[in-house]
């Protein structure tokens, strides 16, 4: 801790020397100190931080207060060395009436989408932003839904002009000569590879993608708004399951639990920690299985065997999780201070089920590797396509298997441990290929590592002779002190899943921002896809493993 504090002081000094009037104040957040920056100089502050190793912009969240708006930036050092890990926050205050902050998208490209989201939902404008449009809501939307004054019952009038067929004008042939060589094509939302939730505005030159712009928001449910109107103790917990809704629910719940437990200072008994870890890793296996299967689906089309085998194995994991939590996807299993109930009885039978699965897994992984890595035709398709250089990945805030597939070993479980990961023996999987293949290989490797963790957890639970305490005593009403805020992340199946909670002293969060890994990963998509063949663009989309419940929230 002292190392980190010293580093914070150094960096503060450095900024003060380089930018004399940029720092207005220093606030203390639960996770790290926050530099209150001059709103018009915030990009300079972030640039200095980036130059000094804070090379990962986790999230940008806008918070509304009675007299101002705040734009909060969460920066981290991406590193595979735990000693070197560190985080710092930057806060920029904005005016109540005309909230505007200088953009940092010229420092971190990944900030582009985050700032668009903040503008869309909270109405904070970012000056000099290259593309200040709405991102999740339709462009014709009136009002900013996360604002206190927003009236949910207000009708959304759309003028006839705005309703006009957006592609009508494209029927006319463009006079511009260069436009005649290319073709604009809408891939999605009703396309097999985007299944109703993503729209790619693509410009093709023959079969080659020259320009692609993802259009998201088809699955936006305003999860943040929902959570801000629910109680910490029970009511928020069912909702994280619905962010990354394909089987990574346990990890999502952990992301919320971690943030609020740190903020409200709730202990978790060790026994419950082990169960949590076990549940999370089972979730991760299920999620990666699906990712591998759907990647194959995007390469093969229709129902192919890899997809089927992946589903078959995932089914086993889901049954184990159902025995534990009572449901297959929407687990609602974690509670503040522990888990909702103990392992299912008879325990030996359940452990046996898990052991059977982990024992059979190496055989199955061999099959997957034969079908994926062994198959020359698949290698030809997956190798060297969808290249994402590590620098670009960091620039966009990509995390998870995407980043590790580019050779950067950043894993929140490793650098910023939570649950029981610290006590267990496992490795971070990285590959240097930077292509679609290495992303899939990372997932396959992680399934094996997760199985290792699961085995260890089962061993610990089997030999457990202490008290089987599944929940610590949590007060009837959980309400962190007013004005405190916290940003924590867990390693979700898709990457760094962070939660930013701002408390106002009540039982409900004042602001709950979800930093979704898929959102950041998708923002790098045009970098990955441009210059690729159409077929490889679809494969790249598959290799990113996007879940739109999490992108759109």
């Amino acid at each position, binding site marked *: 801790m002292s190392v980190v504090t010293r580093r914070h002081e150094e960096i503060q000094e450095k900024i003060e020397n380089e930018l004399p009037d940029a720092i207005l104040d220093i606030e203390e957040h639960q996770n790290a100190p926050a530099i209150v920056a001059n709103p018009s100089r915030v990009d300079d502050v972030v640039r200095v931080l980036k130059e000094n190793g804070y090379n990962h912009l986790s999230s940008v969240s806008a918070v509304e207060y009675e007299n101002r708006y705040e734009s909060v930036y969460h920066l981290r050092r991406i590193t595979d060395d735990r000693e070197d890990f560190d985080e710092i926050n930057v806060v920029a205050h904005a005016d109540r009436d005309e909230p505007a902050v200088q953009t940092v998208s010229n420092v971190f490209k990944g900030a582009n989408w985050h700032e668009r989201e903040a503008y869309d939902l909270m109405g904070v404008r970012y000056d000099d932003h290259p593309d200040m449009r709405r991102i999740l809501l339709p462009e014709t939307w009136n009002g900013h839904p996360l604002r206190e004054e927003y009236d949910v019952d207000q009708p959304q009038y759309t003028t006839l002009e705005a309703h006009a067929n957006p592609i009508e004008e494209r029927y006319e042939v463009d006079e511009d000569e260069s436009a005649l060589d290319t073709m604009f094509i809408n891939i999605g939302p009703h396309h097999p590879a985007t299944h109703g939730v993503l729209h790619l505005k693509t410009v093709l030159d023959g079969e080659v993608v020259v320009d692609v712009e993802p259009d998201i928001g088809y699955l936006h449910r305003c999860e943040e708004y929902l959570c801000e109107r629910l109680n910490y103790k029970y009511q928020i917990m069912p909702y994280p399951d619905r962010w990354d809704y394909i089987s990574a629910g346990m990890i999502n719940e952990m992301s919320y639990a971690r943030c609020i437990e740190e903020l409200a200072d709730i202990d978790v008994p060790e026994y419950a920690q082990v169960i949590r870890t076990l549940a999370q890793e089972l979730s991760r296996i299920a999620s990666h299985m699906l990712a591998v299967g759907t990647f194959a689906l995007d390469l093969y089309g229709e129902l192919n065997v890899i997809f089927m085998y992946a589903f078959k194995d995932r089914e086993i994991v889901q049954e184990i999780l159902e*025995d534990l939590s009572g449901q297959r996807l929407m687990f609602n299993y974690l509670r503040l201070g522990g888990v909702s109930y103990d392992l299912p009885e008879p325990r030996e039978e359940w452990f046996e089920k898990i052991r059977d699965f982990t024992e059979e897994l190496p055989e199955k992984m061999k099959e997957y590797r*034969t079908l994926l890595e*062994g198959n*020359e035709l698949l*290698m030809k398709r997956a190798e060297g396509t969808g290249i994402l250089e590590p620098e670009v990945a960091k620039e966009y805030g990509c995390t998870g298997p995407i980043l590790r597939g580019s050779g950067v070993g950043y894993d929140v479980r490793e650098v910023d441990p939570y649950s029981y990961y610290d006590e267990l023996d496992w490795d971070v999987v990285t590959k240097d290929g930077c292509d679609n293949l290495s992303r899939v290989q990372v997932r396959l490797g992680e399934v094996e590592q997760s199985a290792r963790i699961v085995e260890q957890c089962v061993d610990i639970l089997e030999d457990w002779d202490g008290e089987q305490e599944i929940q610590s005593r949590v007060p009837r009403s959980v309400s962190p002190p007013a004005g405190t805020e916290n940003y924590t992340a867990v390693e979700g199946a898709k990457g760094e899943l962070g939660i930013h909670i701002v408390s106002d002293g009540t039982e409900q969060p004042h602001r709950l921002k979800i930093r979704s890994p898929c959102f950041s990963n998708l923002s790098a998509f045009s970098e990955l896809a441009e210059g690729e063949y159409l077929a490889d663009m679809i494969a790249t989309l598959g290799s990113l493993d996007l879940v739109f419940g999490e992108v759109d929230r």
Partner: protein
Amino acid sequence: MMGVLKSLGVTAKHAIKGDTFTVEYPDESPHISPRFRGSHKFSLSRCIWCRMCEEVCPNGTIDIKTNQQREGEEYNLNLGQCIYCRLCEEVCPVDAIILTQHFELNAGTKAELEYTKEDLMDVPWYKGMDPLEAREPDRGAWIGTDEEEEVWEPAGAD
């Protein structure tokens, strides 16, 4: 080309083995864990109208109306809106509401899924069946002490 042939070998192995993992659903019921959270069962005789379930429900699925003396008048549950989080069961001090293993729910209109307390007693799968039976052997963990088991009377049995 060896890799392709090997892959073909893997698929052939599966085809020859002939294992299936899908289930012929209505004939063969899928694996349902004892903890599964399906449709609700509500016991009018147990309910003490404390409104805990209504308060904890994250999306207002449960709607309770009481009179001046705080005696229960209506207990409405909109199954079409429920997210099956099981929080109502968790907070209920007397186990008056319970999520059963039943999951086969259908209706022609949304309104048909709005159940009143009479409906909740009258639904066929509640009749003469102890919804906790499926929860063996960890039933104790669900309803507390063993004595409470004796108090239990399946609703609709009377």
